[in-house]
């Protein structure tokens, strides 16, 4: 372990304490990643019968063809052998082939994941752009009309179904006013409505979180000191208080990534936007197991990696974490 640390330190040029922290986090992440792979493997094992008999509904096959297919897919092997083979294939970047059109799943996911990540990130930007200022206003005006209004708006925002908001936006901005394209595929203009529809609920969550953390921070001694030494209120809030309030927010944004990614699946369907969501939905309807398996696994792995990055960022920003 010491040697690994030294090599890692040499490669990254990071101080020892940070490298240790990174390795520690990585060591915790690897079993989770392995767990995700094993779970996705076993989900398909839950199918009544097996994948081949489930395909029977879509493609007519003779008993002999079915047996042949089972042999090709390795379904006749014992479970642990199947899992072993699956892991080896995964290590080579092979996620299997689609049961329809027999394209490699990795290729299908590769072609679609970019659009979904783009939508997720855009929605997160929308959420922060709306949620952060609203939360700050609510906290600064704590207990007054603005606070009540911001809290109410956040409560409504978190309760509105994103797909319905998307539909209503299409109705207003695309059908009635004609300002924006009706489908979500044409560049930046096509990204606006999907990103807003997906981001609003998230903005509401960020508003609530910012409000409560900031109210707490604004009551601390160092903020009182900052005020006592005569700093203007804007500097106290934005420079002193918000900086500390942002830390828990960072963790929450990482944790919300999964929700947003899942929400993107639905929003892509609303706007007929190409992406992992439309790919997965089509695959579910076709009962194309390898594709669904691949999409679900990649989404979970992405979630874990995003949270790893957030944790590391957290440690970079807040020394208490890496020394703790």
């Amino acid at each position, binding site marked *: 372990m010491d040697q690994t640390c030294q090599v890692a330190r040499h490669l990254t040029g990071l101080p020892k304490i940070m490298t240790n922290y990174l390795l520690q986090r990585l060591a915790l992440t690897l079993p989770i990643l392995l*767990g995700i792979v094993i779970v996705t493997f076993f989900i398909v094992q839950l199918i009544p019968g097996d994948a081949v008999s489930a395909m029977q509904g879509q493609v007519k096959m003779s008993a002999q063809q079915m047996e042949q297919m089972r042999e090709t897919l390795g379904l006749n092997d014992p479970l642990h052998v199947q899992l072993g083979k699956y892991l080896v294939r995964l290590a080579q970047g092979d996620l299997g082939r689609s049961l329809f059109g027999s394209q490699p799943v990795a290729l299908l996911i590769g072609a679609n994941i970019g659009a979904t990540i783009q939508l997720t990130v855009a929605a997160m930007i929308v959420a922060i752009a709306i949620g952060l200022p609203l939360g700050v206003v609510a906290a600064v005006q704590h207990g007054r009309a603005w606070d009540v209004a911001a809290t109410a708006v956040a*409560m409504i925002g978190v309760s*509105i179904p994103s*797909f*319905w908001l998307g*539909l209503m936006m299409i109705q207003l901005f695309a*059908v009635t006013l004609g300002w924006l394209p009706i489908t979500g595929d044409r560049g930046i203009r096509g990204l606006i409505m999907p990103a807003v529809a997906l981001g609003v609920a998230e903005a509401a969550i960020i508003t609530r979180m910012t409000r409560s953390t900031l109210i707490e921070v604004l009551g601390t001694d160092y903020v009182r000191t900052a005020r006592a030494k005569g700093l203007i209120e804007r500097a106290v809030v934005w420079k002193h208080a918000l900086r500390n309030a942002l830390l828990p927010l960072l963790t929450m944004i990482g944790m919300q990534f999964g929700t947003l990614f899942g929400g993107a699946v639905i929003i892509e369907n609303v706007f007929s936007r190409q992406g992992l969501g439309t790919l*997965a*939905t089509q695959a579910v309807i076709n009962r194309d197991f390898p594709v669904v398996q691949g999409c679900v696994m990649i989404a979970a792995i992405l979630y874990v990696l995003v949270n790893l990055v957030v944790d590391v960022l957290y440690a970079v920003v807040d020394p208490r974490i890496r020394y703790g």
Partner: protein
Amino acid sequence: MTRAVQQSQTIEVRPAGVTARWAAVRQILRKHPSLTIGAAILAVMVFTALFPSLFTDANPVMMNIPDRMQPPSMAFPFGTDQYGRDILARVLYGGRYSLIMGTVPIVVAAGIGIGLGLVAGYFGSLADLLIMRIMDVWVAFPIILLALAIVTVLGPGLINIMVAIGIAWVPYYTRMVRSVVLGLRTTTYVEAAQVLGFGDRRILYRHILPNTLAPLIVMSSMGIAGAILTGASLSFIGLGPQAPTPEWGVILADGRQFIRLAWWIGFFPGVAIALTVLGANLLGDGLRDWLDPRMKV
């Protein structure tokens, strides 16, 4: 004689007790407006879902082609869809599906989560390690995608998406119950119960479980809101109950198809979802302020 006195006392005491209780309830409702508003909204939604025939004579699934795509009017307050079905009737009858989809998975998830959380938190060591590592993997799957995977295996339908949503919620309950149990395990009263020689089961059920109730109720109220949203989303993309079932997500999917021609098909079920979810969220918020102010976010 004695009996008569006792009786008259009971008769006198009871109304006073009830009044006092009512006064307490009224005070709680006044002190926590979000609890009151949330409970009121939910009560209306539950009532209309249970007795839709009080509000409309129309059949939610019967087609009536001559009246198709009618905008909202006195005859059809919410308009009609592409088959001439009354949207008001569909929305009213649809409430049942959403309420079932919101409550059943949450109750099941809470049940499983309580069990796992109690075991992990109380017995600790290997059980805790094992259960919590499994939960770490479990939460990594976004709810919607986990549901997609489960629906692929089980096929679309109301029951199957309820299973999917229920499974997806388990780790959140497990983590919450475990954290409460961890906090309680070393308290004096639990240690006293152990010293007195009470069995683990008695300590768990009689001394620890009741303390998890407040956070459980709060989490479940918000969980119902989340489950209704997830359920509607999944039926919207065609994985839940199938047409012509008057489920809100299904009606919204019709609305998407005819968005250029008839905005009302998609508008009203969306408002119904938003209202129900708002009710459950407000109720959860109010319950949290009332039962467990420490949890306030």
